[in-house]
């Protein structure tokens, strides 16, 4: 297990209690997905609000 007392510890950052070698494997596999997410982040979304918007529940009608 990694040293969870270190704030920059990779396992602490992602809150995954995994051995370092497993965590490295997961991070390596995530590289393809990170590239796809980074491509999305590069798109100018202007003032667009998220599709999921909070609405109060229990509204009186």
């Amino acid at each position, binding site marked *: 297990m990694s040293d969870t007392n270190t704030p920059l510890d990779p396992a602490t950052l*992602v*809150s*995954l*209690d*995994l051995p370092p070698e497993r965590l490295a*494997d*997961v*991070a390596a*596999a*995530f590289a*393809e*997905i*990170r590239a*796809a*997410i*980074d*491509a*999305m*982040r*590069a*798109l100018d*979304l*202007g003032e*667009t*609000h*998220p*599709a*999921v918007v909070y609405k109060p529940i229990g509204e009186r009608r």
Partner: protein
Amino acid sequence: MTPAWAQSVTELAAGVRSGTQTSAALVDTFTSRIEALDGTLTSFVALNPKAAYDAAAADDAVAAGASVGPLHGVPIAIKDNYATADLPTRAGSVVDPGVPLSDSNAVSKLRAAGAVVLGKTRMHEYAWGMETPPCRNPFDTERVPGGSSGGSGAAVAAGLAPAALGSDTGGSIRMPASLCGTVGLKPTFGLIGRSGIVPHSWSLDHAGPLTMSVADAALLTAVMSGPDPDDPATDGRPLSYAACETAMAMGPKGLRIGVCRNHFFETITDGVAETVEATIDALAAAGATVHEFNVPELSVGLGAIFAIELASSAAYHDERLRTGKVASFEDDVRLLVEMGRFVSAADYLQAERYRRLLGERFAEVFEEVDVVVSPTMPLTAWRTDERSVEIQGVSESILAAAWRLTYPFNLLGLPALSVPCGMAEGLPVGVQIAGAPFDEPAVLRAGAAVESLMGPAPRPQIAHI
């Protein structure tokens, strides 16, 4: 006469209602076929021990002249992530999802319409994959049936059930439908309540059927539509089967078809391209108008579905992540669930902003067209040992390629139907037809036109044994 196993749901239901066939005989027919053919396909994980009893009760009701529903006495298979009162629900996993023995909203509506639960079909573990091991494709048992509703696709194509339920988070109904040569409908988000279905990604999950005809998909969707008090995303409005019947009878003349040339027609195999282009040409020759357009923002959509689906899955499985239970998942599913912790909250929200932007683009499109037509998948069924594919000289992981054409309609929540439209290298090809929100009738109209022009869904050789 068409044997019972090859008849449509509507034909079987009419036969039971009229007394020309019995539900008990249907259950016996399909159970016998499963015993004879499913050793290779492994599309079922459990048969319902109460099916024969329920079928006998259905026959008694007909004999007594009772009023019966539109699915009365018809055996239907259920994906293993729908809760059922008479069979355990495992979501394809050895890690128990903790689902009680009670009917999910969709299954309870099927039963209320008279359906008999035949058994549970195999799925990719926790709906997180496109292959459904060890299930095999009935057209070539060296190839995958797709996923995550792979057991449902294989079972329906092989004539082991007249219809089956699936669930679709990024394409999990439409992908097995395309690869196995069945019809698969992912309705509008909110049309079918999802309470009692093991969640995967709350804002992307949809319930729907896999069938051998467009009319059957319409009937099952109509039966399962409507209110679900335990699913906050449910819209509540029912789908009228009569409206669907009217639409399906209209034919393609005057139908406005949109063809999005970027994204949906890039990096697809020659066989898929030729088959789908022939389908569009046939629709145009029959009187449909074709409007071509581009949505450039689709080029970065994969990042959005990854961010939302991975983060949602990690949130759903959080207790299993914290307690180490995910170590008992299959390797591929464990990896995907653990990777969900790597998606930042900011990236998740960027994905939700992208989703709204994409919705605005398609809202503009649907002011000009009735449906959008594309391939369902960029390729046909791949071999079970393949982890990446090369299409048009581009190497791509299965994870990225398989759902490239289906996930946009999960992000958008729009109705999307896969209909068989031909074969390429001996394997089925599906055409995808998407519509505006709650405009299932237009989607089904186009689907019925494809069915009429390109021929009914194919049957694999194994089905005729």
